[in-house]
């Protein structure tokens, strides 16, 4: 009768087949040399985009910013940049209950997220129109109690970096 379980047998087989099991490992000098090499290594420069791609990307960014953020009469989107965007990123933010000093962990989304960022803002009334009668009320109550926040980061052509936070709260 073999009492050895499947996991134990697998573990034993792996250990038996390990080609480096009998080796002593790195010497202390080798470990230090490796650590030194890592600490003093210079990161490789990343390949740069072609100028044409940069120009196209800038044009797309301008279009995204103008189309998605410029205030319109029936739109509930906040004031927007008008020109000279070189970089833009949008982040969905849920503010903490108290203004503490904990560092933020929400990652900033990329430029492409600029279009997605508007969906939650407009999706609520869209779903409410097609939903059942209780759904709009519930969503409306939820909207009143939970402040929504969007964070946009961009830099002007003059090089000034701007972080803009759009909030759904009643007043500033």
């Amino acid at each position: 009768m073999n009492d050895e379980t499947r996991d134990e047998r697998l573990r034993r087989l792996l250990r038996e087949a390990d080609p480096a099991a009998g080796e002593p490992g790195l010497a202390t000098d080798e470990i230090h040399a490796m650590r030194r090499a890592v600490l003093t290594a210079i990161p490789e420069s990343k390949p740069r985009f072609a100028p044409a791609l940069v120009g196209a990307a800038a044009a797309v960014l301008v279009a995204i910013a103008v189309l998605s953020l410029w205030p319109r009469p029936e739109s509930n989107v906040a004031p927007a940049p008008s020109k000279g965007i070189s970089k833009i990123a949008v982040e969905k933010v849920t503010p903490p209950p108290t203004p503490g000093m904990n560092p933020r962990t929400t990652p900033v989304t990329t430029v492409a997220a600029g279009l997605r960022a508007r969906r939650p803002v407009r999706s609520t009334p869209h779903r409410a129109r097609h939903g059942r009668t209780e759904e709009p009320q519930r969503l409306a109550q939820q909207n009143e109690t939970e402040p929504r926040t969007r964070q946009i980061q961009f830099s002007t052509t003059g090089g000034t970096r701007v972080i803009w936070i759009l909030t759904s709260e009643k007043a500033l």
Partner: protein
Amino acid sequence: MIRNSCVRLLAFAALLLLAAPLAAAPQEQPAPAQTMRYDIRFMDLNAAEVLAWDQCEQKERCRIGTMAVPNDPSRRGYLEVTADTATQERIARALAKQDGVPFTQSFQVLLLSATTKAGNSVAEIPANVQKALADLKGFLPFKSYQLLDAVWMRATQDRPAEGHVAAGRGGSGYRVRLRFRNLGGPQDRSLFVDAFSLADEPVTPKPSAADKKDGEAVAPRASRPLIDTSFNLKEGETIVVGTSKMDGADEALVVLLTAVPSS
């Protein structure tokens, strides 16, 4: 002919005789290495380790390790260095210079209110942020910017700093909090502001006469966070942090934050 050959042979032999004692001279013995431990009080441990490596001229003869002490408020950890005496002296001098006092940074905070209505923009905007404000004016649709208040904050690395900005609406004010860490070297400061927040501080309303009669206390309105973000900032740079409502706001609050150069 034969004489010339003999002269050359003798000269070569003389050179060999001169070189032999030089080659046989004892090699200069390297200075003995010693291991020392340094307290790191304020610096980031990795930055301290790199600083120590910079002092080590023969890298293969130095060993440097770090040990963090997370629960000790008086120090961040230790640096253990095995090197010759001269290198140890250089490391000690460098650490005494860089780790002697906590890293501090001054910040200039200007709070402005922006509106789409035409108005008189204030002229008392400091010169160092006028470029940032000009960039902002060309970018955002607001027509006038009013300076509400300015505050100067001196912050220590990794410790929260707080400032109060007055002149809010109805006598209320705003509370600015930030915490930063230096990612660059002593000459090239690059700050990471890992927590920056702006919250309004409403004034507690005075109880009316009727309330006083009834003995009811007026509850103060809770502070409301308006901005909560993080960013990188170079020394001397001005960053714009603003907030407005999503639903077609015609007003906004704008903070111009500048990391003031040390000299």
